[in-house]
Every structure is written in C-alpha cells, then in structure tokens.
C-alpha cells in the first residue's frame, strides 16, 4: 500500500500547474470558449509537446504508461482550471477504444497521430432510447459487399464537431439491448450520409447529435472482433468516467476554496460572512464532501491500476462517480448559495465551476445510475 505520488506523477502535476498558471486565466479560457473550434489548437499542440496526450497509453502502445492514477493527477489539475480541450473525449475515450480494440496495424496508424495531436477523435456511443446503457444500441451496421451500411442516431457525441473521425458503436447482430452483437467502426467525419447537429454543452464543451443515413463504411473500418465490442466499450467509458471524476475533484476544491475566500471578505451585518457559524458549518460540510470525493476517486484510480477482476474495477468506478455526483450537487449548490447573487452570474468563475461539476454528473451515468450499478455488481 502506497499513497504517495511517484516522481513522474509529481512532475506531471507540476507541469500542468505551470501550464495552467501561464495560459488558463479565466479570461483566456473565456476567449477559447468563444472561438469557433471551442478549444485552443495551440494548447493542444502544447499538450502533445509536453507528452500529456501519451498519458492514457501503455508503454507498449508508445505511451506514458497508461496508469489511471497518472490520469487522475492530470485531470485534477485540468479540473482546477476548467480546461476545455477535448482530452477525455478524444484521447482517453477515443484513444482508449483504439488501444483496446485496434489491430496492431490500426494502432500503428492511429495512436502516434493521436499522441502527436494531429488527429481528433470522437466517440458516438449513446442513443436516445438507451439512456446510459452502452448495450442499448439500435444503430445498425449491415454488411453490404465489402462495406457496412450504418443507420441510426447518436446523441451527445463529445468532441463531435471537430473530430476527424468518429468511433461509432453499432449493432451488427442481435436486438436492441443484447450485450452480444455490438461492434465499433471508425468513420471519417466527412463521409457522405453523416448529418451532424453541432452544439455547445451547458458547460462550454462542444458536442453533436449525429444521424447516420446509409453511411458506407469499409469493413476494414471495424475495430476489434465483430459483435464483441461491449467489454472494451465499458472499460474505456469507465476510464473516461474516472477522468471526469478526478476533474470534478479539482473543480470542487476550487469551489470550496473560492467560497471560503469570498466569505472572508464579503461583509454583511458588519462582519465578514465567514464569521457566521451557520455558514462556517456549511463550509465544513463542503470540505468534508471534497475530501470524501478525493478519497474515493483515489480508491477508484488505484483499483483500476490493480490486478483485480473487472467487476471490482467497475464497482470502484461506480462508487466514485456516485459519490462525486453527490458532492457536485452539494458543493456546487452551496458555493453558489453562499456567494449569493454574484454566484449566479456569468461574470464570476464560480458559476462556471458549478456548471461543469453539474454537467459531469450527467455524463457517463449519473449518481443514481452508478449507485444502482454498484449495488448490482
């Protein structure tokens, strides 16, 4: 048992802290949000240069090592600055699927580009009728000669608007919620028949709803064994889930920190509001939530890195996501409430942290979904 950061992890942490300090002030971030792409290509290049885009990948794949605890360190710092670059959607989730399912040739083709920052991926995994169930795939891929014909609609494709290629879960056999018969195909974003509705999410990220109308995909675009993609899908989503949990831990800490600092300066009734015991106890409760969230995310990351059965890993991720969702609700609401009116405004960063942690709860399964999954496993 060892709870200390490795030297590499410490260096990684410091490197992100340095970047954020230099490039990610609130106004700079606001400019990125307002840009057409919704992320900074320069930052992205820097991420690649600093080696961050290699963090999710094993050494065998040419990466940094692929430890969940490394990702945790990185993501927590991203969370503190509300970094919007599509690291989780494109690299952790997209890259994770390629890494898990891709043939050696596919990996050699894709991963170096991804780690170099010259390839943007997005994953189209969720469907309206399926809620958070990755096995609920109604999008079909029928073989027609040497092609698949893909039909269906995917919702909330994170990073969809800027992705060069989409990794799409499709049903190649079975019926809607069967766990067998699900495959992943990679489709270039400019393929005819793709109808994309791009939008910004409530927390400033970019995503799309994507319809596939008889989209022709060569069978060589299949990633992994046909019909057997679900375990890899779940595994990749679980790692992405851990990432947003760690991101939330960073953002929650900032919400606590900013609320405490504000309460020390904001005067009401002749005293700083932080001197009022009712508010002190509520901030103590916020602190507790933050510490518990941090602890359980650490537990989940360490479990993902451990040599334990897959079910135990899933259980750990669900525990973390469930608790982080609860913390997001509580700490986010309290931060806004204790700030009062100013906490409601777009001008103050507090509302942006609040929106991000709230959005994270709705991603990859909300608290109820993961509590139920935890109970089931």
């Amino acid at each position: 048992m060892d709870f200390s950061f490795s030297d590499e992890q410490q260096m990684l942490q410091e490197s992100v802290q340095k970047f954020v300090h230099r490039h990610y002030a609130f106004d700079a971030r606001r400019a990125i949000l307002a840009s057409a792409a919704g992320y900074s290509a320069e930052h992205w290049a820097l991420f690649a240069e600093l080696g961050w885009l290699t963090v999710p990948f094993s050494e065998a794949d040419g990466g940094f090592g692929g430890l969940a605890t490394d990702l945790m360190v990185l993501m927590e710092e991203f969370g503190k600055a509300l970094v919007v670059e599509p690291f989780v959607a494109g690299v952790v989730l997209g890259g994770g699927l390629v890494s898990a399912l891709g043939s050696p040739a596919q990996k050699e083709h894709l991963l170096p580009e991804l780690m170099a920052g010259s390839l943007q991926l997005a994953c189209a995994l969720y469907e309206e009728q399926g809620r958070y169930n990755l096995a609920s795939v109604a999008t079909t891929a029928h073989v027609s000669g040497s092609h698949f014909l893909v039909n269906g609609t995917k919702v909330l494709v994170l990073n969809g608007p800027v992705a060069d290629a989409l990794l799409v879960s499709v049903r190649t056999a079975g019926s809607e919620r069967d766990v067998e018969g699900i495959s992943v195909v990679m489709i270039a974003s400019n393929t005819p028949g793709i109808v994309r509705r791009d939008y910004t999410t409530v927390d400033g990220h970019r995503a799309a709803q994507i319809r596939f109308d008889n989209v022709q995909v060569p069978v060589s675009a299949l990633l992994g064994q046909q019909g057997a993609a679900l375990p890899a899908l779940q595994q990749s989503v679980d790692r992405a889930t851990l990432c947003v949990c760690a991101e939330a831990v960073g953002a929650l800490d900032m919400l606590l920190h900013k609320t405490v600092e504000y309460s020390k300066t904001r005067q009401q009734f002749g005293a700083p509001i932080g001197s009022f015991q009712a508010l002190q106890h509520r901030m103590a409760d916020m602190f507790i939530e933050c510490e518990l969230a941090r602890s359980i995310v650490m537990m989940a990351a360490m479990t993902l890195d451990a040599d334990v059965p897959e079910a135990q890993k899933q259980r750990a991720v669900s525990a973390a996501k469930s608790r982080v969702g609860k913390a997001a609700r509580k700490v986010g609401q309290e931060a806004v409430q204790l700030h009062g009116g100013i906490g409601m405004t777009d001008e103050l960063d507090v509302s942006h942290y609040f929106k991000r942690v709230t959005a994270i709860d709705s991603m990859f399964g909300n608290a109820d979904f993961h509590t139920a999954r935890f109970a089931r496993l």
Partner: protein
Amino acid sequence: MNAAFTPAELEFQEEVRAFLAAEFPSEIRHKIARHVPLEKDDFVRWQKVLHRKGWAAPNWPVAFGGTGWTAAQKYIFAQEMAKAGAPEPVPFGMKMVAPVIITYGNDEQKQRFLPDILASNVWWCQGYSEPNAGSDLASLKTTAVREGNHYVVNGTKTWNTLGQYADWIFCLVRTDITARKQEGISFLLIDMKSPGIKVSPIYLLDGTPEVNEVHFDNVRVPVENRIGEENQGWTYAKVLLTHERTNIAGVPRSKVRLEELKAGAAAAPDGQGGNLLQDPVFAHKIAETEIQILALEYAELRALAAVSVGKAPGPESSILKIVGTEAAQRIDELAMELAALQGLPFVPEQFEDGFDGELIGAEGEASAMLTYFNNRKQSIFGGSNEIQKNIISKAVLGL
C-alpha cells in the same frame, strides 16, 4: 374543519376555468410550452386581459380595484392559473410597490400611480439590493440629497429583474447618512426616463440577461415622489418584505411541474426496456417531492385561513418561502436527472420564438439543466433562505 369546496366555490372554479379557456392567449401558452422566454408585450397583453375581467389584482382592496375574494377563491384562482399555464403578473408593480402606495402613499400618489399599475400601463421594477447590500439590505449606500424640491440620487442598485422593460423604479435611498443603519432611509419612486439613469444587464449563469444593474448619476427626483416621511422608508420597506406572501410558496406551479415531470418520466426510456416512472428509486424521489408539496400546500392554506380570519401574516410565512423554493429546486433536480445526458446540449435557438426545427432531447429535457441553473436564484433572491431562517429563529422561536 372541512377540505371540501362549497357550491359557491365550485361555481367560482368553473368561472375561472371558463375564463382561462376562452381568454388566455394561445400564443403565450405556446411560448411557455416551448420554454420560450416571455417578452414585455406578452406580460402586458395578458395582464390587460385580466384587468378587463377585473381580476388583475386579487389582493388589492376593493376600493382600488381588488376582487374582494375569500382565501379559498384566491387559492382556486392561483391553482387554475397554474393549471392553465398562465403566468403570474410581474410582481414589482402589482404586488410590491402598489401595497406600499396603498398603505403609505398620499391621495395624490394613489390616484397618480395605482390605476396605471392596475391597467398594466406602466412597468415597475425594484431598487432594493445593492452590490454591497445583499442580505444586509439596510446597509445600502445609494444617497438622495435634498436640493429644493428635488432629491439628487447617486448610487447603484442591482438584481433588477426585468428592469430593462421598466418605466418606473421604486428605490430605497439614504437621505440621512449620519443616522444609524435602518434610520435615514427613504422610499422614492423614480421615473426610469430621468436623465442620469443607466441600466446595464447582468448575464446569469444560464446566459439570460433577466437581471440588471441600475446606475444613478445625479438623478433628480421630485420630492412629491417620496412615499411617506423622509427617513422612514425602512418601515415601509419592511412591510413590503413581510407583505404579499400569497402564493410565495408557488404551490400551484410546482404541482403542475410535478405532473409534467411524472408524464416525462413515464415517457422516458430507462435504457432497460422500461420507463423511468417504473424505476422504484426515481418514483420514490418523485413521491417524496409530491408529499412535500402536499404538506406545503396545506401549510399555505392554513396561513391563508389565518389571514382570512383577520390574523396578520406572521413570520411563519418564512417557511413558505423556504420550503416553496426548496420544493421547486427539488423538481429542477429531478427534471435534470430525468433528462440525463440530454440535459447537456445548450441550444438557445430552440427557445426562440418561431423555432420550428427538431428539438434535441424530448420536450422539457433540453431546458432542464438550464432551468436548474437559473432557479438556484430562488433560494437567494427575495430574502435569501438564510435570512428567512434568521427570521424564524428570532421572531418565531425567540432565539
């Protein structure tokens, strides 16, 4: 004790229903259904319809155009309005400044201002809060210095809801800077067209510009626009703050939203082949909320009944504000959980008038998270819930 409506009350209910069915403009109904924000014209148009019927101001004294309704009638009216999706009047004129004018204004002020409020000819906004005087309202700093027959007003008011539409603003201003906090405050009515007034929008976290800052730069206000005595404004303001608790709990609206939530849950796939209303955990949360609202409804009815037998609305009404906002915010949470990942898209054009494209997400889902964000204000504005708890512990529990 008797929960049933009398035949006369049932007849009144029918009358309200018939009126709403016939007179509530379908364009406005449609906008609300699509979560399109209402504009000034919508509010005014509807309010004028109510005025023609004589129902614009149920809580005013009959002499000034009130309805003379019993508590039960007011309850029925509020309930039917909510069921029909009809918006409440914007409160600043009808429910906030008017009672102050009625109680403390002179005859000339009553004649000058009340008819236009009743007829919705004039739009009012409030000038209470300031950037450094939030919950601690009495620490306000906006000054009004007497110069002959005018006051010269300088300062900034904030959280002016819909102030961008306003013709007039009622303000608390400091007329004696040497006096202790609550003393030295006066209550002024100010024409928004006065030179030196600037309104700047504040964007809230959901992107809406529904509140404003109002800046006063040497704004001249005739002395006859002062309500009551100079330096006695806090007394009038306090009355306003505890007055008009009718429907502060928002029960009728919450009940309607809860029904929508249940319908939404019944229509929402749970990802396992069923719907979300069949999910025992979600159904349990809905039931708890429904029970909370039922309890709140009867708490409000008890308060209304007490008022109707002549008791003043007491500080107990603070619980209506607290629980009413908590219940509404709980519905927001459940709606957001219902929407799940479909709450994430932020597509404002979907909520613009005339949008006829395909919605992203089911009806209501696409706005669920934004509504959750925006409604966090409910526990902050209008006397934060913390202030309400202070009131309860001091005025009710004697602590």
